[in-house]
C-alpha cells in the first residue's frame, strides 16, 4: 500500500468510491442510480459498518449463551479441538 504524495486526482477517488460501493449490500445499490454522490455513499457505508458492529455484538451474545450450554466433551468441542490441531 503506497502512500500517495501530492495532488490526488478525482479519478482515483471515484475509483475508490466505486470499489466501496461494490462492497455495500445489494439493496442499496439497486435503488439509486449507478452514480450516487460520494456523500450519500459514505453515509450508507457508515450505516452499514454500524449495522455490522451491532451484528457482531449480537452474535457474541448468542455465542456466549451457546458456550455456556456446551460441555467439554460434546462433539462441537471435539470439532474445535481438531480444527486447532
Amino acid at each position: 500500500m503506497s502512500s500517495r504524495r501530492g495532488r490526488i486526482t478525482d479519478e482515483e477517488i471515484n475509483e475508490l468510491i466505486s470499489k466501496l460501493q461494490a462492497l455495500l449490500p445489494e439493496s442499496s445499490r439497486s435503488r439509486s442510480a449507478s452514480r450516487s454522490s460520494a456523500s450519500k455513499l459514505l453515509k450508507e457505508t457508515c450505516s452499514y459498518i454500524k449495522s455490522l458492529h451491532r451484528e457482531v455484538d449480537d452474535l457474541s451474545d448468542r455465542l456466549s449463551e451457546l458456550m455456556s450450554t456446551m460441555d467439554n466433551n460434546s462433539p462441537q468441542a471435539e470439532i474445535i479441538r481438531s480444527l486447532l490441531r
Partner: protein
Amino acid sequence: MDTKSTPPPRPHQIPNPSRPDFLACWAAASPSKPMLAFHFLRALSRIHGVTTVRRRTRTIRRAAYSSMARAASPRRAWSRALLGQARARRSRTLTGRAVLLRRRRITAAAPPQPSSPASRSATIIAARGEISTAAARPLPPRQEGEPPRADALRRLVPGGAGMEYCSLLEETADYLRSLRAQVQLMQGLIDLFSCQ
C-alpha cells in the same frame, strides 16, 4: 511487538462428515479466512474459565475484533489500530510504572510508516485511548473535495483519524471485507453449534 506468530494454516479436514463442511467452503472463498477462523477459535477455546455471561460476551466480542486484526495484513492501519487498542486495554489493568514502560515499548516498536510524523502520532494516540476520545487528537488532514461525511467514517473505522481521504477509503473497504468475513464466521459457528 508482542503479537504471537502463528504457523500458516493448512487446509484441514473436519472429522465429522455429517456436518455441512461450511468451514471448508467458506475458507475456500478468500485466502485470509482460515487465519480468521484459527485466531478466533483459539481465542474462543481459551474463554472457558469466565463465568459471568456478560463478561463472556464482552470477551468474545473483543476476541472477534482482535482475531480480525490478527488475520489481516499488518500493513493495514485499522488492523494496527485495533491491536493497539487491545494492548492499551490490557495495559490499563496494570498500574503505574508498568503501564508507562509498556507504552514506551509500544511507541518504540511501532511499525515504520511512510507517512508524516503527524499521522504517526495520531495512530499512537488512537492506540492509547478508545476511539471515542476526540479531544487530544490532532485534526485529520483535510483533502479538497472531501465530504463532511468523512468525519463520521473516520470515527467508525479504527485508526481512521489520522488518515488521508484516499487511504481512508481503502482502509474502509478492507475493514468492511474483514468485518463481513468475521460476521459470516460467527454466524456459521452458531449454526454449527446449535444444530444438534
